């Protein structure tokens, strides 16, 4: 396997150890002639956990698919992949089918779509077994029940006859794990298995995977962009950049040395904290009093009074002029509903939302006089812009709120100023949105929010879709702008580390209520509410680095 003479930097074969379970040897992948992976060499020992990390587009997932033999048809592959003594790259498709599921199991990122919606979970788990003719149908069903119980879905509560849509995201990911390990494969590949999940669910799933791998004596190739997840899980780490492994080695050693500047940059960006200027909060700007928002539930029986789901339940808080406040909570906690209510896009059932004393929603309509003082930046840099308009038209859209919008030279000046403020060039105004990267698009989104000089900007998961290094830059930009323009921020996010890095004060939301609030550091360092404690405990943490003082080291 190592006859080609490749060296395995960092990792390498331990003397006297058994031969590697998985070995990539000079692996290259090109799609339509465009190289995706370049000369990748890597080994994975039996029952070892290896994490591949890197930013989006670095080729992590492509490596996993190559190991599975599931690359798209258009991909040309060079180099060798071997599993134990078997050279996978030489196998025919039927031979590969025999290996997939039996010797290599795989878990994917998106549990909501990874399961067939029209088949029961029992059927899908037994299929792994039956397709390899490993057991009789009766035995396979028994095994499916066992393995589902093993992943935390006991048959008395989760019978095999359940359909995927009857399960939550975390439960579906458990089903996916059950399918992958049903035949006790030697190697498990997990491609961002918890990225789509809430932080508490993520902690449970990571713990489950870790336990399973240890107890079933499997090797794990884990792919994730999250360095904190990596540091808590992996025996060894390979850092990828643009289709190449730039550095690999045992976890502790790699974090201690960080020989490659890219590794260091990723690490620094992951724990980046924006430089917030000192705060002297002014008068209350945004005030919520006992806000409640109900949604009607579909009736389950014909002659039953209509039931409501209370998405926001008696929420009250103030944000003062100049403050940067975070609102954290997991999916479904009501933070998106609350965001829409604050923007005056939807009415509330009771309570009041006022900006500078004026209600955001009056007489069945949003109050545009108030909206003028408030703007928003959304999560998805790709869905936030009409692809058919140029940047100038995109960022001037909020001018619609002004009774007398600037025209001609004044408009051009406003555009140039907004673009310059977010670090872009005034000439970018004439371009279409597809000419920009994700990070640049978020800058344009901020320019759009900034252009009518609002007092309050809501950031709705505004950096969640960005890679860590870009995220750090955008957070710095936000901090800069708040200082320059005296802006007040409300950050809505599920990501604790982001909220921690850019806010002075934080509100923790759960099931429609604010369960804890206080200065950011106080809440994160000494959470009072049990839910907040659980959240903070569940969040993956970057390792402490030797030689750094406690003061310089963020807790997350």
């Amino acid at each position, binding site marked *: 396997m190592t006859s080609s003479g490749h060296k395995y930097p960092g990792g390498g074969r331990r003397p006297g150890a058994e031969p590697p379970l998985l070995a990539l040897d000079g692996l290259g992948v090109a799609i339509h002639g465009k190289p995706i992976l370049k000369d990748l060499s890597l080994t994975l020992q039996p029952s070892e956990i290896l994490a591949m990390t890197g930013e989006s587009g670095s080729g992590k997932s492509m490596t996993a698919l190559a190991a*599975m033999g*599931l690359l798209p048809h258009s991909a040309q592959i060079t180099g060798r992949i071997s599993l134990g003594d078997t050279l996978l790259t030489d196998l025919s*498709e*039927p031979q590969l*089918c*025999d*290996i*997939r*599921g*039996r010797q290599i*199991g*795989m878990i*994917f990122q*998106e549990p909501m*779509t*990874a*399961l*067939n*919606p*029209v*088949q029961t979970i029992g059927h899908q788990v037994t*299929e*792994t077994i039956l*397709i*390899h003719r490993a057991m009789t149908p009766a035995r396979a069903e028994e095994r499916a029940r066992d393995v589902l119980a093993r992943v935390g879905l006991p048959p008395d509560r989760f019978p095999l006859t359940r*359909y995927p*849509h*009857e399960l939550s995201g975390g439960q579906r990911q458990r089903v*996916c794990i059950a*399918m*992958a390990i049903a035949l006790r494969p030697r190697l498990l590949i997990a491609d961002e298995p918890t990225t789509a999940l809430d932080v508490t669910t993520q902690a449970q799933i990571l713990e489950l995977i870790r336990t399973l791998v240890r107890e079933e004596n499997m090797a794990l190739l884990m792919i994730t962009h999250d360095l904190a997840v990596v540091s808590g899980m992996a025996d060894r780490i390979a850092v990828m950049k643009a289709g190449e492994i730039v550095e690999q080695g045992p976890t502790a050693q790699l974090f201690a040395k960080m020989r490659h500047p890219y590794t260091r940059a990723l690490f620094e960006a992951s724990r980046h904290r924006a430089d917030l200027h000192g705060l002297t909060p002014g008068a209350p700007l945004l005030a919520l009093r006992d806000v409640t928002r109900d949604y009607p539930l*579909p009736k389950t*029986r*014909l002659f039953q009074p209509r039931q409501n789901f209370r998405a926001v339940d008696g929420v009250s808080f103030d944000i003062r002029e100049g403050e940067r406040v975070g609102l954290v909570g997991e999916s479904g906690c009501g933070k998106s509903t609350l965001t829409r209510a604050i923007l005056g896009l939807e009415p509330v059932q009771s309570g009041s939302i006022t900006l500078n004393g004026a209600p955001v929603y009056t007489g069945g309509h949003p109050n545009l006089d108030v909206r003028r003082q408030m703007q928003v930046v959304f999560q998805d840099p790709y869905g936030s812009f009409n692809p058919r308009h140029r940047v100038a038209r995109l960022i001037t859209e909020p001018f619609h709120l002004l009774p007398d919008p600037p025209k001609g030279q004044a408009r051009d000046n406003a555009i140039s100023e907004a673009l310059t403020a977010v670090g872009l060039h005034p000439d970018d105004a004439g371009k279409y949105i597809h000419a920009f990267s994700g990070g640049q698009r978020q800058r344009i989104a901020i320019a759009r929010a900034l252009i009518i000089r609002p007092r309050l900007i809501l950031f709705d998961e505004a950096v969640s879709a960005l890679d860590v290094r870009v995220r750090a830059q955008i957070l710095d930009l936000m901090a800069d702008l708040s200082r320059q323009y005296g802006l007040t921020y409300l950050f809505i996010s599920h990501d604790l580390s982001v909220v921690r890095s850019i806010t002075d004060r934080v509100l923790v939301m759960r099931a429609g209520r604010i369960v804890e609030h206080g200065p950011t550091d106080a809440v994160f360092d000494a959470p009072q509410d049990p839910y907040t404690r659980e959240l903070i405990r569940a969040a993956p943490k970057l390792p402490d680095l030797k030689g750094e003082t406690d003061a310089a080291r963020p807790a997350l």
Partner: protein
Amino acid sequence: MLRYALKRLASLAVSLLVASLVIFLVVEVAPGDPASYMLGINAQPETVAALRTELGLDVPKYQRYLDWVTGMATGDFGTSYTYRAPVSQMISDRLWVSLPLALYALTLSTLIAFPAGIYAAARRGRLGDMGVMAATQLGVAVPNFWFAMLLVLLFAINLRWFSAGGFPGWDDPLQGIKALTLPAIALALPQAAILARVMRSSLLDILGEDFIRTARAKGLSRRQALWRHGLRNALIPVLTIIGLQFSFLLAGAIIIEQVFFLPGLGRLIFQSITQRDLIVVESVVMLLVFAVIVVNFAVDLAYAAVDPRLRTRS
């Protein structure tokens, strides 16, 4: 499931009611009085009045609508103005030609389209796929009644395998089926072309889904993943098209009957139009609309059978 079915049933009832009202109102605005038309210009006013009473035309309009609707619900479609015969009898005689024809065509179309669509999807981009796609592209463009004429020219006139038209009745079921075969093929092939295209593109959509990748990771081959996971999911849009096609097949059957001189609903309706026998037109149209609405109801139920999400949600 029951709730879903009941909800669909309720909307079916409303559709039928509204459709009947629309049909009635449209026919109601027709100029001219059927009684005077039937008796000619020189008829005595008393004779006309008597006929009006006989045909039930002398009561208020809403009363006539109610009579018509309640009558249809109990199987009484009224009396033909021209033949003075019960409309229900006239319709049921013709229905025994048109309905088997439409069902025959639907079966043929599905039997051709499913394998063709699945085959093309499985060999996406290869020669077989391109062949199927070219054939369907042509099939979509062929008017069924012209295709029927070509079939007659080839199989009836030149080869003499089938008769060029007419219908011997169902006394000998084999002869009946034989007489409907060319018409059914003419109806089915253009529809099959559309259905095969829908099947193919629906399957290709599904094959791009995450759960197909999951299935492949479990060790299923491409073919196994397509059959075990792709097909049932791909059926959902295909069912919609089958439902829509039924109405085209019914309408198409009316036209095709003209080519083959079949004594079906088509013949009845065109005769009735020329004779201004509006009660017959009204009833046949209502029947066609009824059939379409019921088939769409059946498609809705089939959705629920295919997709468990509909059974528990909604």
